[in-house]
């Protein structure tokens, strides 16, 4: 009997050691420098609030921690879309002026590999900027670092929340440099292929409510041909 207890205790300790090793694995670290921060091309910045209640509409399966907003929005409870969320939000430029509207669809990805520190979300953005046309942004995001550095400390906190400053890039693909694929729709960007990156700045997070104070940012590297147009529009 005592051998069985020792074995069970060992199994429990082993699983706990593994979990701790996974969470605090020093080899699974953030990439650091954004590939778009060293580009020579012009980069446009679109900012948005990542707090669901700041959005025009946010919806998910209705059973997740983060509740849909507004309360009576249709929920995505059907099996095919149960792991998906949809957001419509106002996008602002670098000077905090309203720049357009953004719609984001995010789905938890089957390419998630926690062993490799990959908590992957497949997402697409549709951004419409009046007078400047539309953009379609396709990306894979990795939330592992965010979960480890914000979600876990919030979970371990007695108040179930976290406060601090977390800044990180979420985009990890499909571009070879870990960038998102951006395609221009209507307007002057029509048909153009670009690169993009989504990053997140969080200062408060609650286990019960999700992000409490968080700002997202989309960076899009403009091709040279449209830089002049963007400059002209910015001056207007």
């Amino acid at each position: 009997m005592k051998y069985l207890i020792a074995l069970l205790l060992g199994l429990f300790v082993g699983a706990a050691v593994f979990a701790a090793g996974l969470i605090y694995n020093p080899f699974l670290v953030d990439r650091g420098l954004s590939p778009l921060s060293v580009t020579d091309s012009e980069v446009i910045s679109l900012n948005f609030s990542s707090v669901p209640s700041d959005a025009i509409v946010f919806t998910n399966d209705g059973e997740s921690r983060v509740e849909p907003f507004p309360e009576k929005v249709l929920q995505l409870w059907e099996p095919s879309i149960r792991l998906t969320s949809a957001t419509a939000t106002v996008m602002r430029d670098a000077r905090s002026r309203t720049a357009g509207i953004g719609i984001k669809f995010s789905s938890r990805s089957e390419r998630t590999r926690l062993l490799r520190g990959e908590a992957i979300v497949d997402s697409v953005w549709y951004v419409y900027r009046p007078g400047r046309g539309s953009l379609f942004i396709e990306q894979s995001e990795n939330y592992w670092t965010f979960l480890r550095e914000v979600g876990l400390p919030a979970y371990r906190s007695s108040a179930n929340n976290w406060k601090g400053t977390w800044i990180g890039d979420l985009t990890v693909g499909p571009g070879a440099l870990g960038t998102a694929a951006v395609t221009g729709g209507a307007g002057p960007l029509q048909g153009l292929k670009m690169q993009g990156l989504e990053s997140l700045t969080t200062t408060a997070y609650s286990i019960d409510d999700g992000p409490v104070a968080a700002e997202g940012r989309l960076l899009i590297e403009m091709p040279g041909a449209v830089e002049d147009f963007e400059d002209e529009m910015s001056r207007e």
Partner: protein
Amino acid sequence: MLKTFIVGIVLGVAGAAAALYLYPAVDQHREASIVSVAANGGNIESFHVNVPMDRILVGAPDRKQPLPAGMEWPDDPLFQDIRVELFKIRNARDTVVGVAARTVAEDASVDVIDWVLHLPARGSIFVNMQPEPQEGGFRVGDLRAGSREFVLRDGSMTERWVPDTSGEEDAPQGRIELVTTLVGGQEAL
């Protein structure tokens, strides 16, 4: 007993690693695709939106009854000529398979009608529609981009409003029919 405890630790580490490796952290539900082959090549797939029950959002200025209730459309002149709708989309078996966004905007230089279809287990497509409807009351648009399953596809999509004529009490007002015709594109060298 110490040896048993150590063996337990090793087995615990190995078991946790094996469980994490073998058990999928995310398992998306898949509906079988209902695809037919076009006479001149390509795959035809049909989706639809039942109106009004599949509408998630109707965002437009000056709407008397916002959808969803309680939604506040931004009161900014920039959004004056934009109408954004979010829907659930269904396959030919009337099963929900994804979500979609339709954006209509009247711009000084160009009219915009864009669709984004997001099928969580498969990928997404972005279609830019021609503003003028064709004969027969449908619009045609080109696939501008796709993700995952659709990343190397070319093709087009049509949209058409089909009013309900069944007369049933709980029937939708009608449906937006979306038909995609996609062919395999070429990978960039």
